[in-house]
């Protein structure tokens, strides 16, 4: 996957978790949870979906890496490049 595809995948996962939220204006460098109503349980589901769909393991200590859209793409790129 390219960076752009990874970003779209994350957005698609978030949209599935919180379907009523408008994600079109989501800024890449601001924590996702400051921009949309996404609680810690919802946030966990982003990580769970990545595991379920692509077998990607994100250890608890690395959850912080997924705070913004940009940092998520950077963190996931080496793990999703080959997909």
């Amino acid at each position, binding site marked *: 996957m390219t960076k752009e595809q990874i970003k779209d995948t994350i957005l698609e996962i978030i949209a599935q978790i919180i379907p*009523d939220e408008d994600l079109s204006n989501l800024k890449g460098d601001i924590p996702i949870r400051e921009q949309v109503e996404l609680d810690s349980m919802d946030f966990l589901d982003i990580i769970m979906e990545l595991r379920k769909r692509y077998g990607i393991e994100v250890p608890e200590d690395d959850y912080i890496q997924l705070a913004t859209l940009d940092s998520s793409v950077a963190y996931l790129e080496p793990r999703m490049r080959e997909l």
Partner: protein
Amino acid sequence: MHYDVLIIGAGMSGLAAGIRLAYYGKRVRIVEKHYRVGGLNSFYSLGGYKLDVGLHAMTNYVPKGVKLSPLPKLLRQLKLKAEDFGLCPQRMSVIKFPDTSLRFNNDFDFFVQEVVDNFPRQADNFQKLLKTIFEYDELNLHAKPISAREVVSSIISDPLLSNMIFCPLMFYGNAQENDMEFGQFVIMFKSIFCEGFARPQAGVRQILDVLVKKYKACGGELKMRCAVTSLKCANSRVESILLENGEVLTADRILSSAGYVETMKLLTDYDSSKFNSHAGQLSFVEFILVLNKEPAEMGYETTIVFYNNSDIFDYRRPDGLVDVSSGVICCPNNFQFEGPLPEGMIRITNLANFDLWNRLGEEEYKAQKAAWLETTLKKVVKFIPDFRDSIVFTDIFTPKTIHKFTGRINGAVYGTPNKIKTGRTHLDNLFICGTDQGFLGIVGAILSGISMANLHVLQKG
């Protein structure tokens, strides 16, 4: 047979945990000793009538579109839609003390106005209490327990108002006698007063059907009439699980909704002296009365009455079999349903003493049930129209019945007063969910299952 997770008990919390785990690919089995799901919130059929246990009303009702409260949270976590539970909001409920009544519905501003109208001198104090409630982080699993009675009485100077606020909150989810942990108070206050009551047209069956279907669709295994005999421990872990049918299972992790002491009793190295003081004492008797007409035909439109015969609300295990000086009168018909229920119904709940009920011989047990029915009816017709001539069928369950079907020590429906908020036990792979973990009510139980599954399994990889 080996599982990623074994869940003990197919009640609300066990099923919710099961859905989370199975949905995310864990190999899960739920074992339930009863032939029916639901645990403390179950159902049965008798005399041709479909009856519910536990559920009077679901708390935490919010209209569709509200996002950050417990009900929508749990729906999102379980990948369910708001329509799946088919919740219909209440009409009007009331707290009735000798000279004062406070009504409430699912519009919080209405309740605030009721308090102001009935307790004008407490108006400012009540606002202060609300501020304290809204600023408190009730979901912090590591908060130090503080006394709700102390917090509330330090703000509200009229004990009558304080007692009236406590009455429904304690009846609907307090395991402790006469006081409540403040975090629990905040949860109950929000779930009952700020949010509100609702009920599916088909009662608790609808909720359970949805959960069981979802769990199975996610690939979870559910074994009924499958009691756990013992949990064999070694090296600070549960090594294997022996079932009543002789089967031996192993599991990486075990989530038990059977109750904290009840679960500890399953351990092969169980030491009763360590755990007995945790057992809950509060139980209830419930009188279920089927009527030949809708209560609305008698001019009765109230959903739930919380009554108390004195200005002081005494919430504790009674010295006699039943305490009719306070109670809850629920009319399942009086929700805003699409159509009428098949029959009229009134349910009355009073505090009761497990030991005294448990001690009775069979004949005496029956006789006492009949006698207390008459006593409680005499009491409740002071609060609602006299419906005694319309009763066509009666069933009564006691703390003994609750113990028999749920395995709860003392028939304690709200479990231990010492909640295990983190869900952790002294064993590395055994966790507690449900009533004894700390979230109460149906919504609370479901959230407990979800959060324990998240915390102890999904986040651990």
